[in-house]
């Protein structure tokens, strides 16, 4: 019996400082993978380790779970931002 493996690609809109990028993802890949693509898409080179994806309600997505487990739905808008913004 032949086994057919399918890969599902969905998209989300990631917004960062007023600009949007539409990014493809696979529901079972880690949030960290999507975060890395978002950082690359916006040319973020510095402070990458303190950047996260947030829902529009302000919930930070954990990096180490799948996008599906994080509750992300196709077409959803996610916010790319620093976890902490401060100065001194």
């Amino acid at each position, binding site marked *: 019996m032949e086994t057919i493996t399918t890969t599902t690609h969905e998209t989300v809109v990631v917004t960062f400082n007023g600009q949007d990028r539409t990014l493809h993802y696979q529901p079972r890949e880690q949030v960290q993978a999507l975060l890395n693509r978002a950082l690359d898409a916006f040319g973020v080179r510095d*402070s990458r380790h303190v950047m996260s994806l947030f829902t529009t309600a*302000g919930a930070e997505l954990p990096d180490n779970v799948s996008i599906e487990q994080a509750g992300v739905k196709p077409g959803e808008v996610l916010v790319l931002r620093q976890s902490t913004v401060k100065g*001194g």
Partner: protein
Amino acid sequence: MSLLRADTNLLDETFELLRRCGEHRRECVVYWTGPADGDLADGVQHPDHQANALGYEVDTRWITRFFLELRQERRSAKMQIHTHPGPAGHSETDDRFSLVPAAGFLSLVIPNFAYGPVTLNDAFLAEMSRDGDWTQRSIAELELA
């Protein structure tokens, strides 16, 4: 070619906000915003934040709301402006935790809690490079008219 263009009234409004909020004893921060495309700044946003004499931290919920508002209005934050108690400079915290750690974003530091004259003569200006480093720029590269 300038890094950013703005009306001098925006600078007056900024100093007023920084002074009123900081009360000569706390740091304060604001963001200059403008149309997403281009180098014009025509608005100032004063975030929800906590501060003391040595630093500030922006409310996390405010950041998400702000980015969604910018998206809706097709605008972007062009420059962060914050005060220092003494001379202006860019601290390690300023380097690592800016609002927009991406190429072209500007960071302006104003000395003495902004209680000096309303000028940028003693301010410190830095721009994030494509490599993700902060590079000092001349104040003269800001076009205020």
